[in-house]
């Protein structure tokens, strides 16, 4: 019935408007393709040989090969293994994300479900730390690290990434926890449910998707970070982005290898981002936009 109404409604649209709709849809497709093109080019080039990667005009239909990936993973015998930096990035991102959750979830609880007095002031304090450029605190951190022998240690990055993502996570988590209906909480406490039961049975199911989204966004920001990693790490604790910047050599062709590296290193973020797609806006806007 509704479907039929919809169809007649559509048929009643004047032809000019229908044509305009089609044109706008086409325009949207063209814009989508244009924005996607550099990524598609990166992936395509990563499967070309070095010679095919660096031609003018571009060789779009060149045969595909895994050469770039073999070069990147060190099988070509030419390079340093990318595994230590990849593992460093993974450690820094995963551990700092876990720390962020451990700190942010209770904090968000104390800011939404059982709010402390002046909770919004606390929220704005958290946010204001995010507004200050990281680079301003870099030097003291460097000096402290130098004196405590923490330079070139992945744990230093873990601490810094935790502080970098904590404000965002608190804001996100608060907006997710604020969605827990107060009436149900009250009903539960009247029925004599303890704190643990309330958390496990009522808060957790509502908050779980939010916790997952917070974790994914925190992971993405840590994985992407370059400045701290570049200044504070060296051979031992260098992360994937630092490794990537060191991959470009002044001699020889390297484009396919760099594209392969860029693809491999972007893959975790792409997966995390697409997984969090629904909650991405809410996270990026600190929970202000739903």
């Amino acid at each position, binding site marked *: 019935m509704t479907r039929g109404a919809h169809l007649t409604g559509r048929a009643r649209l004047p032809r000019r408007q229908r044509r305009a709709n089609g044109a706008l849809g086409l325009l949207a497709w063209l814009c989508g393709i244009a924005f*996607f093109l*550099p990524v598609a080019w990166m992936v395509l080039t990563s499967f070309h040989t070095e010679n095919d990667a660096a031609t003018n005009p571009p060789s779009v239909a060149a045969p595909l090969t895994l050469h770039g990936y073999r070069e990147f993973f060190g099988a070509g015998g030419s390079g340093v293994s990318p595994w230590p930096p990849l593992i460093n990035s993974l450690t820094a991102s995963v551990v700092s994300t876990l720390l962020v959750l451990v700190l942010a979830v209770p904090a968000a609880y104390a800011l939404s479900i059982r709010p402390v007095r002046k909770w919004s002031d606390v929220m704005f304090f958290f946010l204001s730390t995010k*507004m200050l450029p990281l680079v301003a605190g870099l030097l003291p951190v460097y000096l402290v690290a130098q004196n405590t022998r923490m330079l070139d240690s992945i744990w230093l990055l873990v601490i810094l990434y935790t502080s970098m993502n904590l404000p965002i996570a608190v804001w996100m988590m608060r907006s997710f926890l604020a969605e827990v209906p107060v009436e149900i909480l009250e009903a539960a406490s009247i029925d004599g449910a303890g704190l643990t039961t309330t958390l496990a049975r009522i808060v957790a199911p509502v908050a779980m998707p939010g916790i997952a989204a917070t974790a994914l966004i925190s992971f993405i920001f840590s994985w992407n970070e370059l400045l701290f990693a570049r200044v504070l790490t060296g051979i031992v604790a260098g992360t994937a982005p630092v490794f*990537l910047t060191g991959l470009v050599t002044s001699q020889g062709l390297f484009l396919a290898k760099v594209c392969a590296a860029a693809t491999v290193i972007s893959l975790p973020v792409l997966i995390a981002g*697409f997984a969090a797609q629904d909650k991405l806006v809410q996270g990026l806007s600190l929970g202000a936009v739903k």
Partner: protein
Amino acid sequence: MRTRATDRTSRARDWARRAPLLPALVFLIAVTQLPFVATVVISFTRWNALAPDHRGFAAFDNYLAVFTDPALRASVGTTVLLTATVVLVSLLLGLGLALLLDRGFRGRGVVRTMLITPFLVVPVASALIWKHALYNASYGLLDGSLTWLWRLFGSDHPPQPDWMTNSPLTAVELSLIWQWTPFMMLILLAGLQSRPADAVEAARMDGASPFDIFRYLTLPHLRRYLELAALLGTVYIVQNFDAVFTITSGGLGTANLPYTIYQTFYQAHDYGRASAQGVVVVLCSLLVATFALRTVSSLLREEITR
């Protein structure tokens, strides 16, 4: 006596409420606020790691150097120009794309996913791709496409501009606009979709043109989303380091403030001056941050009253 006892229990209850908050708060103060205090202190010292014997109290010398240094003044201009251009262009593009995506058409989900992808490529990786695979003057895709197009029309002398040398700042800006347009689009699209549908329908019934609907209904509704997207974008893009570092290494007038501070500290080892630069940058960002916080707080207050 009794009041003191209730005082004590109420205070205990207050602390029980605060307890879950404290670890996060203490951690954040220790890791982000203390270093900044140290930065302020160091900014008043004469301290170059290459000349350790000359260390001492410098009063305002570093600040004087900061404000009289033409390179730093240039980098302030670059930062403002870079940030303003990237934020405005990506906001406009993001608005256009959000409006396109707000309508139903075949394959909308696919287009949305394609549009988000630039934001999900690791920033260093995307900067490298723009530099080597797109801008490169001998085999980049941009000049390569020009060659291909010109050959299509039978010419063997296609223009082959060297994008990064001719317009280095634009090259950096373009890659950042590509990266940040999806961010703006996502926020504005969420704004569009929270627009009350019945008002639009009523206006259409009353014979309002699509432009009138956009001008008098959509735009006012979107205003705060536009503000929020612009301010958050500003906060992130002011701090940009990856693109400037990777694409031009701060050369040819593209050094923004974060890159300049990085250089003063990491290459010139002038700790005192780098700290003074850091303090100046923080004071400038506080200006932007105040506006950003006010916008966010108005959205938050709306949520509370709802």
